[in-house]
């Protein structure tokens, strides 16, 4: 029931998905799972003027935003999009069986390893022809993110958002804090905030994925993008001294994190930033969703995680990207291709962003004039990045991150001293998981 770091949905498991989980466990699972594939599917695809689309956008704001895109697509092309929306978490959990059954023509998904995985399993159709039309709309980093391991395009990105350190302008002004640009400055700032009676870094890791964000930041700042990618791909070793150094750095700032983190949701942690009890919070820009008061939201700002190793500076930005893929055997391929082409245009992105202001457009041609100050800053940060990462659970095998890394990082956050034996254990488990298929 792990929520993806997209965080754009309510993290509590829905009752339905929970009961289904319980039911499957009771069945001793295994053979029970593929049967669920019957749940997917669409009946109306024989109609040439209809294309079916499986969506995970179950929350009110994105759901409405997507509906507006499809409406404007219909106006432009005359093709109706038959949307099949599922609960965000349920969609993610069922994705395996959904794609093997009779999936919709087009479906929403994430860039990165998670996209490449299904592409390699031949559960998605390459869309190089679509990219010939929309290619000019995207920067190179986005093009990289949209390709499978075979070099073909499988993905049309729609929007993205950065992970960064969020803070309140008024709090920094009041205490005369400076934006830290180096590791030492960050540690010094933490110490000062603690002295001033603030929680230096808000933190909630109950959902087990936020800690991955902290690891990612320290790792690519300290060891660089290439090592991060190798580590995520299972090639580099977790017992490497470089990984140990990441945890040493983390241990140094861990005392300045909000305590009791494993029992706290990210929403509750964000509330301490809203109430100005915390000084900083490392999270995705969806943290803005917790700022319901306009004045508070205007007071929110962020900076890139400070430099640790001058060789890598702040060149890497973690920017999870959401978009669309074409399923393995679309019933209406030409209409689906038209839809994907439309989704790759700046116009489609503008329609979406009008309704959801917590993210920025993936396209470099999208209209930025309506952006809020926060969106503009996010856009600059992402478009100026040398490398983009997705997030640990999107860049690596989901089975590894959910069954090994999530519990391990929760354990580390509680008890940083046991990290050596933990890293040995992580490496052993990683070898088994990456060795299987």
């Amino acid at each position, binding site marked *: *029931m*792990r929520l993806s770091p997209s965080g754009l949905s309510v993290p*509590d*498991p829905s*009752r339905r998905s*929970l*009961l289904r*989980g*319980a039911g*499957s*466990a*009771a*069945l*001793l*699972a*295994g*053979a*029970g*799972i*593929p049967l669920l594939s019957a749940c997917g599917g669409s009946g109306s695809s024989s109609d040439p003027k209809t294309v079916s689309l499986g969506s995970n956008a179950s929350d009110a704001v994105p759901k409405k935003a997507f509906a507006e895109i499809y409406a404007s697509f219909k106006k432009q092309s005359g093709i109706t999009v038959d949307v099949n929306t599922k609960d965000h978490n349920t969609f*993610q*959990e069922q*994705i*395996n*069986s959904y794609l*093997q059954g009779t999936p919709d023509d087009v479906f929403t998904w994430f860039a990165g390893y*998670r996209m490449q995985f299904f592409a390699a*399993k031949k*559960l998605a159709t390459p869309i190089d022809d679509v990219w010939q039309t929309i290619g000019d709309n995207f920067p190179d980093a986005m093009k990289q993110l949209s390709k499978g391991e075979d070099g073909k395009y499988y993905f049309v990105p729609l929007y993205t958002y950065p992970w960064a350190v969020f803070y309140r302008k008024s709090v920094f002004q009041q205490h005369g804090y400076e934006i830290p640009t180096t590791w030492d400055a960050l540690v010094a700032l933490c110490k000062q905030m603690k002295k001033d009676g603030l*929680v230096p870094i808000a933190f909630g*890791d*109950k*959902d*087990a994925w936020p800690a991955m964000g902290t690891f990612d930041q320290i790792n690519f700042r300290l060891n660089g993008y290439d090592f991060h990618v190798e580590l995520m791909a299972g090639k580099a070793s977790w017992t490497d001294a470089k990984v140990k150094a990441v945890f040493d750095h983390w241990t140094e700032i861990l005392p300045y994190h*909000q*305590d*009791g*983190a*494993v*029992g*706290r949701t990210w929403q*509750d942690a964000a*509330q*301490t930033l809203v109430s100005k009890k915390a000084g900083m919070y490392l999270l995705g820009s969806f943290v803005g969703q917790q700022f319901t008061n306009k004045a508070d939201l205007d007071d929110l700002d962020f900076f890139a995680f400070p430099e640790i190793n001058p060789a890598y500076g702040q060149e890497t930005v973690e920017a999870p990207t959401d978009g669309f893929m074409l399923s393995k055997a679309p019933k209406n391929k030409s209409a689906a291709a038209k839809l994907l082409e439309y989704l790759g245009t700046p116009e489609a992105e503008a329609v979406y962003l009008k309704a959801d202001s917590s993210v920025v457009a993936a396209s470099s041609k999208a209209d930025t004039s309506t952006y809020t100050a926060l969106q503009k800053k996010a856009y600059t940060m992402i478009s100026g990045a040398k490398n983009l990462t997705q997030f640990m659970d999107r860049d690596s095998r*989901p*089975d590894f991150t*959910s*069954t090994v890394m999530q*519990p*391990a990082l*929760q*354990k580390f956050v*509680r008890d940083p001293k046991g990290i050596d034996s933990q890293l040995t*254990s992580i490496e*052993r*488990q990683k070898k*088994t*998981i990456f060795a*299987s*298929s």
Partner: protein
Amino acid sequence: MSTDTTTTTPGAAAVPPPGAASDDNKRATQSHRRLLTRRDRITLAVMAGVPTILHVALVWVTALASIALAFTTWDGIGFDSIKWVGLENFKELFTNNPQFWPAVQHNVIWFVVLILLPTPFGLFLAVQLDKRIRFSRVYQTALFLPVVMSLAVIGFVWQLIYNPDTGLINSVIGANKPGHYIDWIGDPNLNLWAILIAASWRHTGYMMILYLAGLKSVDPSLREAAALDGANEWQTFKSVIFPTLRPTNTVVLVVTIIEALRAFDLVFVFNKGAQGTELLSILVTNNIIGESSRIGYGSAIAVVLLVISLAVIIPYLVATFRKERRA
């Protein structure tokens, strides 16, 4: 089928059994045989057959498939990606999985706590309610309510109580300030016990109803006899009532073992089985459901759970039934 029934039924029903008048005993067996018309047999076959097919398909086939999958690796995509790995999954589980042994331990603790605290307490409440005190029905309903509610709902309710920042307990005792946090949900020394309180709260009601039903069936003359013999309340309960509750105790024990082994929903809602609250059922789910899809490995954990269940339940049931047959 309709033609069958119309042709055969009247014949069978209309012809009276030949020996009807002579012998009562004989008549009973004969008419019993005769009354099983083809329609009856078809009905019987359908009524027994459909549940049997469902049972075999949903219980036996899935259980056996799960056992078979435990010796493979499979990502759930296409049957040709199933690979035989022998005992690898179990080796990995027993030696490499940092969550496995804690999970086994927590399942055992779960059982011990349920049998030591809420079960006697449920018995105590049942005995009190059995005395026909005033408003007995009200108490009964109130105490049984947690059993009726979905465990998922119970999980949400208790989460509100234990929330470290805004929860009831920490707010009342002032433990929601930096440096004073009591992390009921995240601290592995606390969270299992915190959840067990919630589980016990529910289990008490369950046990109470079971014992109450058992107590209602105790022959009142036993109490009278005990009273005539001058036994006080405690003596009556200890020497007369409790021994007659033996069948109920069997049910209670089996139910509690099952509850301990299948414990899942509450923990899953509470903190998804974070460190301190790992359970076998949760490990199964985490490995199989969702994108992880380590179906072979998850099945191996499920098989361990199955073996533990069988090892506990079978000897006990065999012993109990043997004793009952002798008696």
